[in-house]
């Protein structure tokens, strides 16, 4: 897993540090009419022209940061601004991800770690409510549909879950905004932006973004639950229970549900990377300035340090959920635990 994380961050590092990207960075930081030589000397001064593995090592914090001596003093990765040699000697040698130094964002002019922390908290709030809405709804739909395969309830609910999986966030979000918030239709039940929900989330400004993300993920989980529920309902021990004369509701709740919910559990956790996509779209659509919004800003403005940090966080989140789902699966399913 650590190997995967290192490989992925290296790929991101490579892609963001391609020369045209650096050239653009130099021009936005310096001035737009820089000649090619000026760009080169600026990049050299800022340490961007070193070989890629070395740069990566410095960013990660396993290689000492670069220093550059001129007549005016010493500049370096771990030194803020130009300092005389004596002061520079006291600066730490290593400064990278592992030392907690995530660099400065060129767009927001703030330390990257601060931005990530605040934005991640906002997105965490969004994700929490998405989970609260999505998981019980999806399980309920799946169980109700899978209870009696082929019944009218099953048909309706299955069609509904197909419909939700076929509606990407940018379509359902646009439809919701059009129907519930615009002055043309006139319902005006909710607010079309969630900007105010960042400080003070309430039903009016927060329900639509949450619903938009939840709907897309819901269909898939519901279908998985339905599949596993139908499988359990045809099992021998359910038939035995029915023949014994146990009430149908009792069979579903006490006998079937426990076994039927093992498979959806892993599916829910594996949905997290997908939700990350949804978060980016919905935060852009509803102008909620969370993690996904930061990703768009960082990528759109070529903010290398911020983009790298965003990628690290999202990759770690994805890998962690995979790990948790593996562990949880073993924990929930005794058959695997014993063998």
């Amino acid at each position, binding site marked *: 897993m650590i190997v995967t994380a290192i490989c992925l961050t290296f790929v991101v590092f490579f892609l963001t540090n391609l020369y045209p*990207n650096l050239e653009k960075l130099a021009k936005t930081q310096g001035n737009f009419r820089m000649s090619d030589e000026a760009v080169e000397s600026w990049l050299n001064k800022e340490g961007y022209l070193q070989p890629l593995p070395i740069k990566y090592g410095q960013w990660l914090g396993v290689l000492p940061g670069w220093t550059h001596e001129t007549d005016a003093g010493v500049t370096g990765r771990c030194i803020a601004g130009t300092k005389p040699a004596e002061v520079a000697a006291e600066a730490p040698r290593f400064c990278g991800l592992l030392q907690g130094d995530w660099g400065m964002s060129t767009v927001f002019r703030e330390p990257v770690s601060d931005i990530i922390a605040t934005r991640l908290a906002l997105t965490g709030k969004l994700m929490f409510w998405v989970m609260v809405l999505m998981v019980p709804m999806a399980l309920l739909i799946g169980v109700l549909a899978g209870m009696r395969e082929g019944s009218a309830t099953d048909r309706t609910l299955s069609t509904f879950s*197909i419909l939700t999986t076929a509606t990407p966030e940018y*379509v359902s979000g*646009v*439809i919701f905004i059009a129907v519930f918030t615009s002055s*043309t239709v006139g319902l005006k039940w909710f607010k079309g932006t969630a900007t105010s929900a960042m400080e003070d989330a309430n039903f009016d400004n927060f329900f639509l973004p949450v619903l938009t993300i939840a709907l897309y993920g819901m269909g898939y989980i519901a279908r998985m639950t339905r599949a596993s529920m139908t499988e359990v309902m045809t099992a021998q021990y359910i038939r035995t229970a029915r023949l014994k004369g146990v009430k149908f509701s009792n069979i579903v709740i006490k006998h079937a549900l426990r076994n039927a919910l093992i498979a959806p559990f892993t599916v829910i956790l594996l949905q997290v990377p997908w939700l990350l996509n949804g978060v980016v*779209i919905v935060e852009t659509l509803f102008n909620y300035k969370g993690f996904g919004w930061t*990703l768009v800003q960082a990528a*759109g403005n070529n903010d290398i340090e911020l983009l790298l940090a965003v990628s690290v966080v999202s990759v770690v989140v994805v890998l962690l959920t995979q790990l948790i789902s593996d562990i949880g699966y073993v924990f929930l399913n005794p058959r695997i635990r014993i063998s």
Partner: protein
Amino acid sequence: MEPLGFGDIVIRILAQFLPVWISLVVLFVLSFAYKRRLGLYGKLFDSPIGMVGFALVMFWVFTGIYAGFDMIATHDPLAQLSGMKNKLPGTPLSDAPDGVLPWYLLGGDNLARDVFSRMVHGATIVIAIAPLATLFAFMVGITLGLPAGYYGGRLDTFLSFLANLILAFPVILLFYLLVTPEIVLTGLPQFMAAVLFFFPLIFFAVLIHSRYRTQPKKDWTWLTIVLVPLFLFYAAAINMRGSKIGFWPLDFFDIPPGILVVFVAVVFVNSPTVFRIVRGLTMDIKTRDYVAAAQTRGETPWYIMLWEILPNARGPLIVDFCLRIGYTTILLGTLGFFGLGLPPESPDWGSTINEGRKLLSIYLHPALPPALALLSLVLGLNLLADGLREESLRD
């Protein structure tokens, strides 16, 4: 001239789609007549869900094709006519040129272009890119997934590691890193295209050679017939004058770099999932008796993979192919929504939704038609896949 009422708009739009209705009716009548002779495709017409899905999909396929020949759209999707900015559906044109419908059936967008024509032309873009990109992803996934599942061992570990690597990337992050003008300048998409587009060549070469290995004459004829045109296409597709790969002399068409990078990104994102599915199916089918029989006959491993295992894995693969075209359509829309890759004035659905959403609280009509179009196409593909799954499970 008077603005059109609601009923008039509906009637005129339905009339505009006339060639599509005719084609749909002909297709369905023919399919029903020869239902029993058409295999799985014929069985599709036994399931109502599958039929609805198929009709939705074919509606957009025909629309896309006919719009490509300038048939259904009423106006030029890029033309801006004066006085039509953000006008409501059914608004008449102030000075209509001759031979052009004198109304904007679904209104004008904020650059005074016809929403209806843009939606129709958006179908052409989706129909041109999505199935082809999915096909390429399948070629890559099959060519790598079969040996990984069949041989197992180190090859499997390595390829699975790579696939998981790509799958662990959030898709949007990958798009933002890959699909930018700066990356296009470095020529990276072209190199990726050179690798990814080579897989169909390998696939067909191995497919033919493993079959006719013992009949050299037939082998060579087939190889030449298939591989020479494919190679010419391959070389022309990745080649472009004035870029990093520009040496091939027979460059008879150029793919615009925006389209190429979108195509490559979508194939790249889709192929690991296909790889995993094919690998899983291969590992399952490998244990069957007919594979053991082929092994005893002394067939080569590639013959067994491509001519014994692959045909028996076709059911789940066809179902997944339908679902994956839908997913590719969603991905294309996502790219358009974030303004990546395709030029900003292009009429594809994602870009149109993105433009329309900015004025959504005042004007609904520019954003809703492409959104509903995308929804219905993906829904159709999902229903079609569902119908196919049901019918293929039945026997």
